[in-house]
């Protein structure tokens, strides 16, 4: 079973590899402008707090407690991205996992309804560490629409757009490890390669990892457009150990209700894109190792963004949705050079 450690969901697979560990944290970030322009990656601005559902069962609706998992506070139209971290038995040898992500039980990669297990044609999951993070719904090849929170029932969430229902909200995550024999073969190959090179090589994920840091239910809606590729699975579908899969339901609560439910203060609202850019703070681009990218989810190509829906419902333009100047983005990934900046809470959460 996964554990909750310092606001991070941690999945361990000691039956396959003693030190096999995969974890996810949920990064707060600014909402990129919801226009026709496609933006670079915004920074992480600290992690969302996570709490066990059963610790606050007295203050939560029965349907929330029956789903189990964790609760997370989000401000309306606040955005998030999922940061993945893989660890293995040695530095540089990470344990790969397949990760299926859904919002309101709508698959974020394909737009299909939730199905257990993993599927190809189309691939309905990502593989970490090849995919170091996920920022939104894959609407077309190389482009996602940002995960932004809106109150469930107001008609903005992707779940409501595609199903006509506001039943689930939140995020659903399934993590599947490699089968033992596949992992052992990968480990042997890595060890032989290291012997030949006589050195400790770094991997894609380590080089990419520094993008880090720098009771109303909420659903995830589609925000602005962002450059981000979803990479194809380098393994075969049979390589994944479905029987060892673990899953978690993350209920999103409106941040204004957080203190009443948990007794803890909710995080401050993050800055908007205009304020962030006016301080000349960086945006990022990720350069993979000549990796191909999957097409966007067929059902997701036609979803409307929050700004489009807002204009349709009210006739007015969504506030704070104008384009901003971002300057040249900083490169992340295997081809990036030099140290990468670290964003910390102190820059904005004071």
């Amino acid at each position, binding site marked *: *079973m996964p554990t909750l450690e*310092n606001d991070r969901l941690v999945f361990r697979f000691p039956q396959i590899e003693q030190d096999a560990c995969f974890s996810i944290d949920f990064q707060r970030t600014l909402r990129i402008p919801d226009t026709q322009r496609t933006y670079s990656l915004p920074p992480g601005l600290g992690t969302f707090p996570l709490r066990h559902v059963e610790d606050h069962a007295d203050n939560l609706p029965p349907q929330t407690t029956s789903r189990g998992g964790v609760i997370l506070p989000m401000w309306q139209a606040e955005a998030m991205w999922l940061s993945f971290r893989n660890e293995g038995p040695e530095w540089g040898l990470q344990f790969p996992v397949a990760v299926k992500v859904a919002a309101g039980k709508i698959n974020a990669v394909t737009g299909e309804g939730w199905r257990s297990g993993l599927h190809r044609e189309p691939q309905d999951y990502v593989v970490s560490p090849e995919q170091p993070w996920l920022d939104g719904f894959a609407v077309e090849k190389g482009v996602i629409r940002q995960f932004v929170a809106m109150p469930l029932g107001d008609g903005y969430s992707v779940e409501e757009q595609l199903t006509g229902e506001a039943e689930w909200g939140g995020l659903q995550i399934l993590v599947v490890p490699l089968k033992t024999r596949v992992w052992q073969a990968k480990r042997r190959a890595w060890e032989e390669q290291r012997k030949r090179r006589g050195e400790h090589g770094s991997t894609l994920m380590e080089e990419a990892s520094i993008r880090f840091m720098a009771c109303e239910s909420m659903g995830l809606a589609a925000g602005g457009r962002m450059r981000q590729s979803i990479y194809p699975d380098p393994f075969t579908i049979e390589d994944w150990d479905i029987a060892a899969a673990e899953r978690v*339901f993350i209920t999103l609560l409106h941040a204004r209700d957080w203190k009443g439910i948990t007794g803890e203060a909710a995080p401050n609202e993050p800055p908007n894109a205009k304020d962030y850019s006016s301080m000349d703070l960086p945006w990022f681009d990720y350069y993979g190792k000549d990796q191909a990218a999957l097409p966007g989810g067929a059902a997701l190509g036609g979803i409307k963004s929050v700004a489009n829906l807002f204009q349709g419902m009210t006739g007015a333009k969504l506030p704070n949705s104008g384009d901003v100047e971002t300057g040249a983005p900083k490169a992340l990934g295997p081809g990036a050079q030099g140290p990468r900046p670290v964003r910390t809470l102190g820059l904005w959460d004071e």
Partner: protein
Amino acid sequence: MQRTKTDAAGAAFGEHIRKLRERRLGSDPSFSLRQVAARCGVTAAYLSRVERGEVAPPGEATLLRLADELGEDPDVMLALAGKISTDLRSTILARPQLFAELIRAIKTMPDNAVLRIVRDVRDGNW
């Protein structure tokens, strides 16, 4: 006759059981000694002796039935009787060194710190 340590523990356990049962008996006559004993699969005479601390606490199966009947947490009920559940025992015995070290390391931590370290995220119906 001087009471032994085991006797004292048995008496405390018996008193706890009796208080739990009598609290419920105040609002529900089905919590008489005789009826509770019958539902737990023991005789009224035996349960009476348990409540008075005259015999050692019953075995695990009876303790779990008593916990269910009296609304007590099963692990708390077993601990009051000086026992740990079979599943916990087999878990510890499977990796004795690891769990011995773990328990010694966390024995003085406050509850919230322990929960942060070791708790699973529970899955539910969705």
